[in-house]
Structure formats: structure tokens, C-alpha cells
């Protein structure tokens, strides 16, 4: 009954180890109430792996555990564990118990022995503590003492029975070298356990490569393959498998690539959470461009991580300040974290793990890795490629917008595909090159690709000045974008031409203004003339009236004097008044009145 159950453990019956990356690779941790065998050579991290699992269980889930040390004394183990800052000494004895099962070399052997006594002791301790975990660390040491393959087999079997009776989640570690791996009793041990893990540390191209592989997991799927492992300051970290399915969501939000003109070339900037690769020959200002991106992110107040290699952060900030990129203040405010790594110090695997923990610590929204090619410097290229793509995927999952740089020798990015083949996973690829023409080297910027973006296809000249990198205006001549002096000449020419045009325009404008003024003056003169004529007319009319009045008066007076007929006189006066009233326009009136006036006289 029990045995049948053991054959088919449910996926839900896993206990997490709390070891970064391992729980992902194993689909949840170690099999609950089952036995896991951890194999590896000396120094491959077996003890750390098992101790870390059991300490995590005690700390995080209050699950008590027993640690049986066959190889090292418990004080040695405690000392080693203290360097990881797990707070081992703070854990109560009721949660974690160490059994020093390390046989002193002075012990005399006489005949066969077995583990029944030890198992009895452990059973008592387990019941006292309510322990759920047990570690047998370095069981090979004990087995060697047995000096008899049959006895070894028998004791392994005894341990197995005991473990299944006691329902403990167990980790057994065994030190193996290549030769003993498939030899009894280890072959049998691998068969008897439900989960087997191999740790390996080897040299690859002169760089230490540390790997973890799950070779067996009964009744459960697991990620096949070797996973990079690193024993860091807080214990083991494993780089889990890259997810088969891409889970990260894509954003339509645009993030500035650093400055406006580059953004407009990119159709508005970079999409958030995407990766950008800047390639270029030495000195094409890849770093400056990447740093500009970082600076603009900091200005927006977004947490940013700037990773550089083989150059101190101080030197980098100083150099960048000469091209108008000021990072110091952002470092001070905590928005920007500068990390400067040594390429030689760590293999690609370790670089990846270091970067991952940096990302976890700083939680950046934007990140620069300058150059990404640095991780390929030490170690095998295949590993480096793998690490580079894992890194990019990890950052995408975390929603980090990342700009990386990569050095290439040569001018054609298509031919000179980057060593890391990162161009295939980068969403945007900007290439910087030198264009040599007319005896000058000028920096040229091209966007090779930008996924989901209608990006500019133009080759632009990149200039650096004290305010940062800048894309110049585009001047083309004969289908070529002009750069450097040629551009400058074209610019100057354009300026002269513009000046000329302006002068011409000004001239014409002035001419027209004159003409306008002239016309106005003429209008004014005519106006004056008109006024004069009117005044003249008024004067004439006045005279005429006066004259006709005086003559009428005179006639009347004369008639009075002559005692003539008054009726005839009245009729003359009335016809005269009517004629004046009918005159509508002054001119016609004028003429009429003049005529009448003449007739009257």
C-alpha cells in the first residue's frame, strides 16, 4: 500500500526548498515525505544545498528538521553556515537539530556494525521535535566504514525503510566522483530515491562552471538540462530554466530612448519592457547613447540600474559628465544604481546570477548593460549565449526596459552579427558606425530593426557635445546623407542661401512699402485738392447768393421807389427759390446756380 503511494507522488506534494531557481526547475521543490539524493564531487555544494533547504523550511514554515553530519563536525557546519547570514544561531534547537555522526578517526573497528542504533536515536529525536525534514549529509563516509558492499547495500535499504516508515522528507548527500557514480551501491541509491540531483563543478575554457542537474524525479515532470548554480553570499542560487512559454505581457507605452530626435526616429521611443541592442565599433559612443537613456529614465524618476564591466563607476560617471550626462545626483538620490563588474572574476553563469540579484535588490524599471558582450569574455561562447538570452528573458519577465551594448568590429552589422546572437532576441537594434568619407570619420546611427515600430530608415549623423549626444539635421546630396565637414558646408551653404533669400525678400518688401506709401501720398494730395475745390465752391456760392440777394433787394428798393407792381416781383423771387432747391448734386447745383446767377444778373 505504502509502496504504491510512493510510486505516484502528486504534484501538489512538493515542499519548496526556498533555493532561488531550484523550486522553478523542479516544479515546486523536493518530494514531500520522499527521499532526494544529492550527488556531487567534493566542494560542489551538497552540504550547502541540503542545509539551506532545511534551514529555509525551519525559518519560513516552522518545519522542524534533523541534520545528521557524517563528514564534517557540526561545529564546522555551523561555522560555514554562519557566513551565509541565515541566522542559524537564532533558530531554536527545537526547530533544527544537528547530530554529529562524524566518527572520530581514533575509533577502533572490530567486525560488522549497522545503523539501527542511530536510526533509533533519530526516531526518538524526530518524535520529540515533530520533525518533518531530515538530512543525511555525507552518507558515503559512513558507508565506506562498512567496508563491505553487501553491508552497504543492506544499510542503504535499512535507511530507506526507516525513512518511509517515519514519513520524513529526506535529503541524502553523497560524495561521488565520475567512477563511482554508476557503481553499487550508488546505482541502487539512485534507484531507491524519488528524486536525484547532481551538482557539478568543472572547468570550461579555463572558467569554473558550476551546474545543477535533476536526473530523476519520480512521478513528476522536471526541467531537464543543467542549470547554472552559484554559491553566493546568501547561499545557493540556481538559474532556473528559461520559460518555454513567453509569459511577459507587451506594453504599448513608449519610453524615451534618451533624446527627442532618436525617439522620433523610433516612432516615439522604445516600448516599455523591451530590449534594445546598441552595436558598434570601439569609440562609436555606444556607452554615451546607453547612458543618455539611463539619464532620461532617472529624470523621469524611474529606478535605473547601470551595469558596466571592467571600468569603475566613478570613471564612467566622470567620462559621461564631459558629454553632458550627469548621473551623480541620481546615484545620490538612490534612483540610479551603478554596478561595475569584473569580467575575468566570474564566468557567465555567475554574472547572470549576480545581475539577477542586483535586479531583485534595486527593482529597476530601466537598465543598461554596457557591454553585454563582456559576459562572453570569460568562458565558453555557447554558455555565454545561453546566459545572455536568459538574462534578456528574465528582464522581460520583470518588465524592465533594457538597453545593452555590444562591441562589433567592422561596419556591416548584418554580416557582423553579434557574437552573442542577441540581435535575434533584442526588440530594437541600433547600430553605430564610422563612415569614412572625404577624409573624415563621422559617427553614423542606423536603426537596424525595431519591432512593432515604423522606424526611420535614414542614416543619421551622431554628434557629441557638452549637452549630450545629438542627431544632426539631415542633408542629403546625390542620395547620400552628408556628414561632418560636408554636412557643415552644406549647412553653411544653406545658411548663406537663406540669408540671400531673406535680403531679397526684405528688398522687395521695402519696395512695396514705398509704393504703398506713394499711393497713400497721392490719395492724400487728391484729398487735399478735393477739399480745396470744395472750399472754393463754397466760397463761390456764397458770393453768388450775396450778389443775387443784393440785386433783388436793390430791385425791390427800386420798385418801391418807382412804386412798381409788387406781384411781378414776387413771381420772379419764387422761381428763383425753386431752382435752388431742385439742385441735388453740388456740381449740377453749382453749374445751375452759376448760370442762374449769370441770368439773374
Amino acid at each position, binding site marked *: 500500500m505504502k509502496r504504491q503511494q510512493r510510486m505516484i507522488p502528486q504534484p501538489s506534494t512538493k515542499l519548496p526548498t526556498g533555493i532561488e531557481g531550484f523550486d522553478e526547475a523542479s516544479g515546486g521543490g523536493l518530494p514531500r515525505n520522499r527521499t532526494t539524493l544529492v550527488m556531487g564531487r567534493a566542494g560542489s555544494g551538497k552540504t550547502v544545498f541540503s542545509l539551506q533547504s532545511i534551514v529555509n523550511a525551519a525559518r519560513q514554515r516552522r518545519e522542524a528538521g534533523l541534520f545528521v553530519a557524517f563528514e564534517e563536525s557540526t561545529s564546522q557546519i555551523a561555522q560555514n553556515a554562519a557566513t551565509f547570514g541565515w541566522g542559524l544561531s537564532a533558530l531554536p534547537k527545537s526547530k533544527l537539530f544537528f547530530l554529529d555522526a562524524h566518527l572520530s578517526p581514533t575509533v*577502533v573497528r572490530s567486525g560488522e*556494525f549497522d545503523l539501527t542504533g542511530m536510526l533509533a536515536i533519530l526516531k526518538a529525536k524526530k518524535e520529540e521535535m515533530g520533525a518533518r525534514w531530515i538530512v543525511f549529509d555525507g552518507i558515503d563516509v559512513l558507508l565506506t*566504514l562498512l567496508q563491505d558492499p553487501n553491508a552497504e547495500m543492506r544499510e542503504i535499504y535499512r535507511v530507506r525503510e526507516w525513512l518511509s516508515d517515519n514519513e520524513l522528507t529526506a535529503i541524502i548527500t553523497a560524495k561521488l566522483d565520475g567512477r563511482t557514480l554508476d557503481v553499487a551501491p550508488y546505482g541502487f541509491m539512485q534507484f531507491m530515491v524519488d528524486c536525484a540531483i547532481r551538482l557539478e563543478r568543472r572547468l570550461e575554457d579555463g572558467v569554473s562552471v558550476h551546474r545543477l542537474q535533476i536526473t530523476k524525479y519520480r512521478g513528476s515532470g522536471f526541467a531537464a538540462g543543467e542549470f547554472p548554480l552559484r554559491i553566493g553570499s546568501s547561499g545557493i542560487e540556481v538559474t532556473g530554466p528559461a520559460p518555454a512559454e513567453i509569459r511577459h505581457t507587451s506594453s504599448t507605452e513608449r519610453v524615451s530612448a534618451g533624446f527627442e530626435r532618436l525617439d522620433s526616429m523610433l516612432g516615439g521611443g522604445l516600448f516599455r519592457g523591451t530590449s534594445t541592442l546598441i552595436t558598434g565599433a570601439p569609440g562609436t559612443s555606444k556607452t554615451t547613447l546607453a547612458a543618455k537613456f539611463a539619464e532620461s529614465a532617472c529624470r523621469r524618476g524611474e529606478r535605473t540600474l547601470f551595469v558596466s564591466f571592467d571600468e569603475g563607476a566613478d570613471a564612467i560617471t566622470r567620462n559621461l559628465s564631459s558629454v553632458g550626462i550627469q548621473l551623480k545626483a541620481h546615484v545620490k538620490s538612490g534612483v540610479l544604481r551603478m554596478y561595475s563588474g569584473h569580467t575575468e572574476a566570474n564566468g557567465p553563469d555567475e554574472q547572470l546570477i549576480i545581475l539577477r540579484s542586483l535586479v531583485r535588490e534595486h527593482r529597476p524599471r530601466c537598465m543598461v548593460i554596457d557591454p553585454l558582450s563582456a559576459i562572453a569574455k570569460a568562458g565558453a561562447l555557447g554558455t555565454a549565449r545561453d546566459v545572455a538570452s536568459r538574462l534578456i528573458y528574465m528582464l522581460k519577465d520583470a518588465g524592465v526596459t533594457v538597453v545593452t551594448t555590444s562591441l562589433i568590429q567592422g561596419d556591416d552589422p548584418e554580416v557582423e552579427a553579434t557574437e552573442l546572437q542577441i540581435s535575434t532576441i533584442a526588440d530594437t537594434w541600433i547600430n553605430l558606425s564610422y563612415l569614412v568619407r572625404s577624409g573624415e570619420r563621422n559617427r553614423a546611427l542606423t536603426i537596424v530593426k525595431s519591432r512593432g515600430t515604423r522606424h526611420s530608415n535614414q542614416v543619421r549623423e551622431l554628434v557629441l557635445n557638452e549637452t549630450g549626444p545629438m542627431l544632426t539635421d539631415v542633408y542629403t546630396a546625390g542620395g547620400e546623407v552628408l556628414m561632418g565637414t560636408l554636412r557643415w558646408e552644406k549647412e553653411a551653404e544653406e545658411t548663406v542661401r537663406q540669408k540671400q533669400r531673406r535680403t531679397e525678400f526684405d528688398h522687395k518688401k521695402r519696395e512695396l512699402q514705398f509704393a504703398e506709401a506713394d499711393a497713400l501720398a497721392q490719395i492724400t494730395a487728391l484729398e487735399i485738392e478735393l477739399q480745396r475745390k470744395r472750399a472754393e465752391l463754397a466760397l463761390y456760392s456764397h458770393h453768388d447768393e450775396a450778389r443775387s440777394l443784393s440785386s433783388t433787394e436793390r430791385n425791390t428798393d427800386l420798385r418801391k421807389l418807382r412804386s412798381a407792381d409788387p406781384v411781378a416781383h414776387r413771381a420772379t423771387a419764387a422761381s428763383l427759390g425753386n431752382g435752388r432747391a431742385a439742385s441735388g448734386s453740388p456740381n449740377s447745383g453749382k453749374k445751375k446756380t452759376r448760370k442762374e446767377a449769370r441770368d439773374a444778373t
Partner: protein
Amino acid sequence: MQRKRAKGKAASPAVATVVVMRLYISGNAPNSVRAIANLDAICKEYLKDGYKLEIVDVFEQPARALAEGVIVTPSLAKVSPSPAVKVVGNLSDKGNVLLALGIEGRAG
């Protein structure tokens, strides 16, 4: 189950010291049973009454075994005279046991 076999005190003034021993066994596991028999034979042959033996069954007294640093069974601890010595195994290798107990010479 705890068997104490104190076979008298120092039997004869000629034998200066009494050998005090503790044998840790686990119930009636084959090796444990064999160890008791082997030790009995050795004691009878070489120590006569000049020894004190305590047999501790780990099944019954696990805490004590733990405190006394017993890992595998059977194992024999010589408590006195010093130096304290530990022998593991079913004691079938008589020579090693005698050497450890420092009683090799007494046979003669």
C-alpha cells in the same frame, strides 16, 4: 531492557585496575546479539572478574545514547582506565578489541 553486569569489584589485588565498559546495542539486532556474545567471551577469558560492564539498549535509552555520542551499533566504550576508547562493530575481531581495551598482556 538494561542489563548491568558488574562482575564483582577488583577481583584480586594483583590486577591493579578494573576495566569499566559500556556496550551500546540495539535490541536484538544480529550484530548486537553477536557483540554481546563476543564481549562475554573476551571478558571471561581475559578479565575474569576485573571488569564492569553496562549494556545500554539504544531502543530503550535513545536520549542517553545521543548524549554519549553513539552513532552506530553495536559500539563499545571503554570508560576507564584512561584513555577512553571506542570500538565499533560486533567485536568479532578479537585482536582489535584487546588492543583497544589494553588487556592484551593479561592473557599470559
